């Protein structure tokens, strides 16, 4: 159009166009809008292949296991000694002895033991820094199927003869779980057609033992409060029992029991009483110290089906080193509690370390054994003493030290404790260190030799106490303990339970933090922080065999038989709370491989 034509049209219609400035602003605003606000989601894109589960892309995995678990009941576990070819429960049997009657592998032929197969647990994920991982499991074996758990939410069913993976379950574990010490899991329980697993964020998960699918899932502790879980659950009668973790976060410890069939929560027993409850007189009155009292229950208990009593250990009080905020003996921390499995009632208790100032968790296993017509319980405590109790009533038979102890004198016949050394603000050298003279890895009792075998952490530390203000979910130690690296070593000791005297000792350069395994083949298997698995003669301690696995052992090896062949399974994978029990090995290579040995 010419200028004249435009002017004639304007005069005819009366319409005017917006000035140039307005049009430019509108355009600018429209452009700004287009840039500043989100682009529309591209619903026109072609659809990608459908999402699949990660393990569906593992062609080596069978996908399901034979049905071996539906025939496992608490009653069958109570008779575990009649089927030594299986390892039906965490300690091999309810008695906690970690003893196997298998003798195909024995002192005469163990020198020929070699790997039959290995299982590698896979890549370490992002949940926590590498230092905190460790392979701490006790594999279970039921009629040729191995059930194994790992860090990071893993549970596997494997063919126990070949190592082939049958199924894998992986729980989604949140990144920020308030673990105290390690991204670890000590094992599962199997029975009634299910595999029971406790995740780090305190989910008790019941899996179908054939497919690995979830049957039910229940929360049993509160991550927001600083709780977590590492324990292997225990199947007793129709209940699955789990313990909690978090005594380093000022939690209040407890045991929980769930119906194995439905997951219904049946009972909870707190290990630290409320004001007015039995034991509350051992906590300060008019104080909230009980609410941060600790006493967690992170090691699986043992069980006497005849007496119908659970023997469960409790951990340190909170805060670990600052006892001034909680005057009193602090029941039931650092104790064995004999618990009625039907309702969680505490029938009796024995407190190993009253008013703990040294982080001497009383959680270590309680080994049930009969000797000279007496029903006894043996407990190697972190505080450096072997306690032998009458397990019917908790009366002390004898208490003896099994290594260097400077924190107290303990009278052998009465158990009376005279404390000699306490943490100070400037720091005090005390033995044992915070890992204890024995850490959680388990001792064993051999029915063949009638000896106890214990993995020993010889280590002292400088203990400092410091007042700390409590905030939920934050670590609450009340001080610190620094191991003294220059004077530590490890041992496996054979101890006569009748006297507490040492029969023999096998010494190693580093603390021993793997569970020992005793067998009728006159053997004691042990593992070292530098990766060796060793077989020692049960009667003399002579080293008969060793094998280098490539990463430190911090687990519970087991033995079993399939198709007439005996195997020894050893999870190898260093990590966990190394600063506490072997700081000189803090930088050692991590690992995540299960080695299974057999004779050629």
């Amino acid at each position, binding site marked *: 159009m010419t200028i004249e034509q435009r002017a004639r049209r304007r005069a005819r219609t009366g319409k005017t166009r*917006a000035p140039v400035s307005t049009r430019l602003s509108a355009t600018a605003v429209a452009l700004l809008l287009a840039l500043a606000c989100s682009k529309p989601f591209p619903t026109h894109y072609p659809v990608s292949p459908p*999402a699949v589960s*990660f393990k569906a892309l593992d062609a080596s995995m069978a996908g399901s296991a034979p049905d071996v678990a539906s025939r496992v009941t608490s009653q069958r576990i109570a008779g575990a000694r009649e089927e030594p070819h299986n390892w039906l429960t965490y300690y091999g049997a309810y008695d906690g002895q970690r003893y196997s009657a298998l003798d195909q592998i024995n002192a005469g032929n163990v020198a020929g033991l070699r790997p039959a197969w290995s299982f590698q647990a896979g890549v370490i994920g992002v949940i926590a820094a590498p230092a905190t991982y460790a392979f701490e499991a006790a594999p279970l074996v039921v009629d040729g199927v191995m059930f194994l758990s790992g860090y990071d939410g893993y549970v596997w069913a494997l063919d126990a003869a070949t190592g082939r993976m049958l199924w894998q379950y*992986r729980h989604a574990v949140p990144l920020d779980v308030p673990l105290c010490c390690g991204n670890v899991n000590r094992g599962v329980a199997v029975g009634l057609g299910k595999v029971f697993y406790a995740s780090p964020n305190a989910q008790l998960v019941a899996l179908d033992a054939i497919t690995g699918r979830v049957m039910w899932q229940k*929360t049993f502790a509160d991550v927001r409060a600083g709780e977590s879980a590492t324990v292997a659950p225990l199947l007793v009668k129709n209940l699955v029992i789990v313990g909690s973790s978090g005594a380093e976060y000022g939690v209040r410890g407890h045991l929980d029991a769930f119906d194995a069939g439905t997951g219904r929560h049946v009972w909870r027993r707190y290990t630290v009483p409320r004001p007015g409850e039995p034991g509350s007189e051992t906590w300060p009155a008019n104080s909230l110290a009980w609410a941060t009292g600790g006493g967690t229950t992170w090691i699986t208990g043992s069980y006497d089906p005849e007496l119908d009593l659970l023997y469960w250990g409790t951990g340190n009080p909170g805060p670990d080193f600052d006892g001034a905020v909680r005057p009193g003996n602090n029941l039931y921390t650092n104790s064995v509690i004999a618990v009625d499995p039907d309702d969680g009632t505490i029938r009796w208790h024995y407190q190993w370390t009253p008013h703990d100032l040294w982080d001497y968790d009383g959680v270590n296993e309680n080994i049930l054994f009969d000797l000279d017509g007496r029903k006894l319980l043996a407990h190697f405590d972190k505080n450096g003493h072997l306690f032998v109790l009458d397990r019917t009533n908790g009366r002390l038979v004898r208490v003896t030290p099994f290594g260097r102890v400077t924190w107290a004198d303990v009278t052998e016949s009465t158990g009376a404790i005279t404390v000699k050394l306490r943490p100070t603000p400037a720091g005090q050298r005390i033995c044992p260190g915070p890992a204890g003279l024995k850490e959680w890895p388990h001792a064993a009792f051999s029915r063949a030799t009638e000896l106890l075998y214990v993995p020993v952490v010889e280590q002292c530390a400088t203990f400092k106490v410091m007042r700390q203000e409590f*905030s939920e979910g934050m670590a609450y130690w009340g001080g610190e303990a620094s191991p003294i690296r220059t004077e530590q070593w490890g041992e496996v000791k054979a101890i006569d339970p009748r006297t507490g005297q040492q029969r023999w000792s096998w010494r190693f350069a580093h603390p021993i933090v793997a569970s020992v395994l005793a067998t009728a083949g006159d053997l004691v298997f042990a593992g070292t922080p530098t990766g060796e698995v060793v077989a020692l003669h049960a009667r003399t301690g002579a080293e008969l065999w060793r094998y280098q696995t490539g990463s430190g052992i911090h687990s519970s090896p087991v033995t079993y038989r399939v198709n007439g062949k005996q195997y020894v399974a050893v999870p190898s994978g260093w990590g966990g709370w190394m600063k506490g029990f072997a700081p000189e090995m803090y930088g050692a290579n991590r690992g995540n491989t299960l080695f299974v040995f057999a004779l050629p």
Partner: protein
Amino acid sequence: MPGPPALAACAIVALALAGCDYVRLLRPSVLKQLNPDVVRLVNELPAVDDANEALVARLFAHGGLSWADRGRDGVYRDQVRIPRNQYIWKPAIVVMGAGGELEIDVANDDEVFHIALVPSNGGRQVLELPVRTRGKVRVRLDQPGLYWFGCPVANHAGRGMLGIVMVKGEVDPAARLDRPKMPRPEDR
């Protein structure tokens, strides 16, 4: 004086702007969360965040945050995009108001192949995303906490394709400790 059409246009623009993300930041509830550290993060991040300045790709948090919507069926849903040449997820942080099922609709706007590997109870889920495709992945995250997801192709995760699903909320009340309300860190 602008005529009615221009006024209408201004009104539409104003409404659109009000719904726009930038303007929504000017609400009091958002402004009161700003503190010097956050302001510095926002101001300085672009300078250290551009590809090939301090990083070969981009800092993962630059993908931003989004709240998943809870549908009538109880499933949380959100959309995540992979922009071109940045090796990040946008948003990088997906927030679920409580534990449950999450369905993420992922679009690959990039010119290379990616995978979304997302945690889920039972096992991680793998969603393959060829160039310029879109797919849905459904996962079960039923407990509070942070969960990471990422792209496991090459080192895409290391270069920035790390993301977080944040599940808010408390645990089952039946599992909580029987004790008085205790001080939390944010109270101090």
